């Protein structure tokens, strides 16, 4: 068949398909209007192959290529039911993922908690060491935050209770930002994640050691124990996700480095999303529970211990059942 006859015969169906595509791209078409889309799309694919095989002109082939490309974009998607997947992820997928990546989680935890404990002990024993990681102004502001005489605790302590909102926003911004940085810098062969894990561990350790040493221990520990369960572990998980990226580059195994990185990133991004959820919970707890002073320290410690057990039990045991959600 000559090209002109071919074009004349199919012109109308191409135009109809193009109109349908435009409507789909604007999201204006409902299911009923698309019933013939699959067969139309396949027909155009066949016509494009035919046009190429018969040596028709570039103009025509280009036009058909555009139609098939746009059709392909509408037809094939990496998409499924977001809500159902999210629930399955929370009920079982996330703890399963954490357990399956236990090597990275362990390495990140050792790095972070190791630095924290070491620095805490050192500062407790040798108080001047706190100035090796913080400048005097920062130390001063930390001390004023956890002064036992204050009525409200934590950052923003000097303001009244109406600013729980402000605190909530600030915590989300600050903590999730740190988690994202810890993750992303893992792409530098894991070094960035190690640095941020170490750095944050040392910083928190220094603060904890210093405040305990000057006698503000009770206000500090009762404040942080509740949300720390979520916040500290979230940083560890974000670091583990970053280390996973770095490891894929260092030891790609049987894949090329870029392929190994792509595969590792698919898992790591899910780990990071779980960590971000933890941080969201942590921000709630920190803004609305940890900052209250009318409950005694004993209650705070009890709730804090409960939360730590809850987090560890969730990561350790959720999703282990025979009928674990998939």
């Amino acid at each position: 068949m000559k090209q002109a006859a071919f074009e004349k015969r199919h012109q109308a169906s191409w135009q109809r398909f193009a109109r349908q595509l435009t409507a789909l791209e604007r999201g204006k078409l409902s299911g009923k209007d698309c019933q013939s889309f699959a067969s139309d799309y396949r027909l155009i694919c066949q016509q494009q192959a035919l046009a190429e095989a018969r040596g028709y002109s570039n103009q025509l082939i280009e036009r058909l290529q555009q139609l098939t490309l746009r059709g392909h974009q509408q037809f094939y998607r990496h998409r499924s039911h977001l809500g159902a997947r999210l629930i399955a992820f929370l009920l079982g997928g996330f703890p399963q993922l954490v357990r399956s990546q236990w090597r990275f989680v362990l390495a990140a935890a050792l790095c972070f908690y190791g630095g924290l404990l070491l620095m805490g002990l050192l500062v407790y024993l040798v108080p001047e060491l706190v100035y090796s990681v913080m400048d005097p102004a920062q130390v001063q502001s930390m001390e004023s935050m956890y002064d036992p005489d204050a009525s409200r605790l934590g950052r923003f302590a000097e303001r009244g209770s109406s600013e729980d909102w402000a605190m909530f926003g600030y915590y989300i911004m600050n903590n999730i930002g740190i988690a994202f940085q810890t993750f992303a810098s893992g792409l530098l062969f894991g070094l960035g994640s190690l640095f941020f894990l170490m750095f944050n561990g040392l910083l928190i350790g220094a603060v904890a050691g210093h405040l305990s040493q000057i006698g503000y221990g009770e206000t500090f520990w009762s404040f942080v124990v509740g949300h720390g369960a979520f916040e500290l572990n979230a940083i560890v998980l974000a670091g583990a996700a970053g280390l996973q990226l770095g490891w894929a580059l260092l030891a790609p195994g049987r894949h090329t480095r870029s392929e190994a990185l792509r595969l590792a990133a698919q898992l790591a991004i899910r780990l990071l999303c779980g960590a971000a959820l933890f941080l969201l919970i942590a921000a709630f707890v920190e803004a609305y529970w940890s900052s209250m002073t009318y409950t005694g320290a004993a209650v705070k410690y009890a709730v804090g211990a409960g939360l730590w057990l809850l987090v560890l039990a969730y990561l350790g045991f959720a999703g282990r059942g025979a009928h674990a959600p998939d």
Partner: protein
Amino acid sequence: MSLIAPPASANRTGAPQTLLDTSLRVETPEGIDLLLRPAGLVPRALAFSIDLAIRGAILLMLYIALGLLGELGAGLGAILLFLVTWWYMVLFEVLNQGRSPGKMLLGLRVIHDDGTPVGWAASLTRNLLRFVDMLPFGYTLGILSCLNNPAFKRLGDMAAGTLVVYRDLPAVTCELPQEAAEPSPIALSRDEQRAIIAFAERQSSLSSARREELANILAGPLGIPAEQAVTRLNGIARGLLT
């Protein structure tokens, strides 16, 4: 801008098709090839600058509007700042067919390596890893990676398995010159047919001297007089099409 089809001889021998330009081919389940045209460094940098300016404007407006709200405003502001810095690109890319406003203006879009529209996981990965592409200053790692990759991928794109491609342009149709159709003096292979048709179609974009120069190359093999070459080739092209 024209997509020159690969030589058909490559098909016959089964050798991998190599193109002269940077286009990528992705085979679909229907057995046809999608042609993707990855966008280079300059349009991507321009698109990013536009997005940066838009984000700056949004933040400035927020700062002024929320300043009036006081303490509640400070909390909301922090959340919105977080959304704008980390989620601006992700939300636009996933919900707007792979296009942030900057990319839309430059005619670009983000897709998966297999040609499907970008999803949440991939978009989040490529935009979070932007942080590393910016290191040590001014996108140095991203630029080096982009210039070093055949598909112009930055590090975030490699990890997420995504591509930034040009959006398909509306097809321009140009009419063939009005010459009487005539048969070719010799039998033509498929590639030769396509070359002659392409010559006739592209004519309006060529100067007359260049047109004659190109046509004269074919005058000898086809056995037609050099001074009539352009007219005769147009006639043969019309004969092939109608």
